[in-house]
């Protein structure tokens, strides 16, 4: 009897506690992939988010922002469930969500059913999210997967002299978008993509994939992330693979470069492109790296922030700055906040960011090469900086729309 009473009290206090705290607070729901294949990415995303809060503070006028974090596992279902939980149970007014590509597409579609709320994309990078039928209350301050590959194809063709490549990627929208950006530029320059392999997200055994890699190519492009990337590299090394590698934005990233074991050494000399470069000299970037390093003890963070940390940092910063511009005014279905978010220009650590008419970021992209810092830690070194990359990758919008949406086979390997 006593036990059941105690249980009841615990349960009811849990249910009532939500109502007791409602003062002058702005509630923001945050989702990150804290489960599954992309767990390390989600955790570093949250570190970036925390760094932004440390730098900017939580105060907006006389109000305070309260952030509530929910966990997902990179599947669209889990993202919609988490977002609904945040809105309905925690009564958040603004969402900072989600992390992964397909989650982004699902949350964008969900955003349309709640037009009164504001959704700030945290880090997801599928093209479709903001390019096809965008939601008016969904804002994305990071570039999409294709924008993050700008410069890589030309660099591989012109400087490295690669003519024929094959790709291995995870079978979902973000990696399609990445390969889309790569193929468009590499084939446009005259290169050939002979083979595109797709593996399900969360693949553990890459033996058949590695066996099927063609021998007559100059390089192999890897569009993998998180645990998948580490598993692939381990098995690739054990199989004695020696090909030149090229990497996608979450492949050549601190989430992989600082993984334990030798597998990552296969990446030395790999060229890649991303929305950031670990060793960029820019003062703003260095300041951000310092803030990130100071915020967490060395064993609880990466040597340098990952792309996810940067994206979460930027989206959190955009939201806090916009809230301050309107002095926390969320009346009239948050109209003022939405206007401010659409107009804001971020002086982000990885270059200036502004939004286009689809509320999609136009930003700076980096072509990088993986180097050893002499102490065994790997970093990405800048070889080229490309400013003002827009979602149509510099193509005329009419031409761009003819290419089609990124998928397993789109775009074809030709000059558009």
């Amino acid at each position: 009897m006593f036990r059941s009473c105690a249980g009841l009290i615990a349960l009811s206090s849990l249910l009532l506690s939500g109502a007791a705290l409602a003062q002058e607070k702005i509630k923001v729901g945050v989702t990150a992939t804290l489960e599954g294949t992309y767990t390390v990415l989600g955790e570093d995303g949250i570190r970036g988010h925390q760094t932004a809060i440390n730098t900017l503070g939580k105060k907006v006028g006389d109000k305070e922002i309260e952030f509530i974090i929910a966990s997902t596992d990179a599947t669209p279902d889990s993202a919609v469930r988490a977002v609904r939980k945040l809105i309905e149970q925690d009564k958040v007014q603004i969402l900072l969500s989600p992390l992964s590509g397909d989650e982004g597409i699902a949350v964008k579609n969900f955003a349309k059913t709640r037009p009164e709320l504001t959704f700030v994309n945290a880090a997801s990078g599928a093209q479709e999210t903001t390019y096809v039928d965008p939601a008016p209350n969904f804002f994305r301050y990071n570039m999409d997967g294709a924008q993050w590959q700008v410069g890589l194809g030309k660099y591989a063709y012109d400087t490295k002299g690669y003519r024929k490549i094959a790709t291995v990627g995870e079978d979902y929208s973000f990696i399609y978008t990445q390969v889309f950006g790569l193929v468009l530029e590499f084939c446009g320059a005259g290169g050939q993509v002979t083979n595109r392999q797709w593996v399900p997200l969360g693949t553990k055994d890459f033996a058949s994939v590695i066996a099927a890699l063609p021998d007559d190519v100059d390089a192999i492009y890897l569009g993998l992330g998180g645990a998948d990337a580490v598993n692939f590299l381990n098995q690739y090394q054990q199989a004695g693979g020696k090909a030149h590698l090229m990497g996608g934005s979450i492949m050549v990233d601190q989430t992989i470069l600082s993984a334990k074991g030798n597998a990552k050494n296969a990446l030395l000399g790999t060229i890649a492109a991303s929305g950031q470069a670990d060793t960029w000299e820019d003062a703003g970037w260095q300041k951000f790296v310092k803030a990130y390093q100071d915020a967490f003890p060395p064993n609880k963070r990466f040597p340098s922030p990952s792309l996810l940390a940067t994206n979460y940092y930027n989206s959190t910063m955009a939201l806090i700055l916009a809230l301050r511009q309107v002095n926390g005014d969320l009346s009239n279905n948050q109209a003022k906040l939405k206007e401010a978010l659409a107009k804001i220009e971020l002086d982000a650590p990885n270059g200036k960011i502004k939004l286009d008419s689809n509320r999609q970021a136009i930003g700076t992209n980096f072509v990088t090469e993986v180097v050893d810092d002499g102490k065994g830690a790997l970093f990405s070194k800048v070889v080229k900086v490309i400013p003002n990359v827009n979602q149509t990758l510099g193509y005329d919008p009419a031409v761009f729309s003819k290419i089609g949406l990124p998928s397993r086979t789109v775009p074809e390997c030709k000059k558009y």
Partner: protein
Amino acid sequence: MSLLQGAHPQTSQPAEARAALLAWPEFNKPAVWLVAVILLIMPFIANGFFLIEIFATTLILGTVALSLMFLAGYGGMVSLMQLTVAGFAAYMVAVFGMSANTNISLGWPWWLATPMALILATVFGTLGGALAVRTEGIYTIMITLAIGAAFYYFTNQNWPIFGGHTGINTIATPRFWGIDWRSDIPFYYVTLGVAAFCYFAVQYVSRAPFGLALQGVRDNPRRMAALGFNVNAHRVAAYAFAAFIAALGGVLQVWNYRQISPGSVSVGACIDILIIAVVGGITRPIGPFIGAFIFVILRTFALDLLVKLGLDGNRFRLLIGLGFLAIVFWSSDGVIGLWERWRRGAAAVDKRAGGGHGHG
């Protein structure tokens, strides 16, 4: 004949009422009426979040788990593909109905798409069942798990019909008589209605000749075969019936989230249904609903509870696992078993336990 019929109402009304009470002993207990009334007036007690995320979700998961309970409890067949059948129905609603993905969806109105989905999912479940009945025990578990896993990987990689890892988004939900049936209160009543329908259907079938024969097949297939029953036909029919119930749950689920993708039919989710059924107890149809309620409560609040206690919120799965472990450890037949043991202890009456309401 006509005379007899004419005399029928007067003479046998009390007898009929008594027969009805015998057939539906639940109606004789005040606790059952209390639960029914609470469920009916729930929208006046609970707000949107509790109504949909807790109670409607409980009813939906409970309905899917009920189909497993029917197979396992009355048929002795543990099928791990019940969620797959539900997911198949959900996908079919998306494929035949309307969604944001116009390349896939055929755009049929809901009243055409939903029956189509139910029929196809029932056929799918029956075919899977026809495969599974050739096996027994652990092999049934294996083959149904294989069907579930195969379906998951198929949806993950098939783009023309299932939309790959992205799945299908913004699925249209029914709107008629001027009501948006997906808004909180109508949707709650829809799920309650469907769950109640399935509950009573299972209850009824378990006492009908077919259900009794099925329980006979569970207890001694050889003897039933010797008595002239077609054992396999009974089992396949049980799969068909269970598939229809699971399909109803699947349709509700896709209306609830308005989105379906492979994560919803993953192997983990299939196992969740088994956990729900086992935790609730597979001896009675009410078990899966109790199990679903515990599951949903744990899944929703474990993270918050850990954070409140000052622990690392990332470990919330551990708490869920420990909760289930505790229940299964102290009662091998789930919460229902605990309840029955407690009642038996209180009344000190030796009642025969076990499956099938003591009928079977």
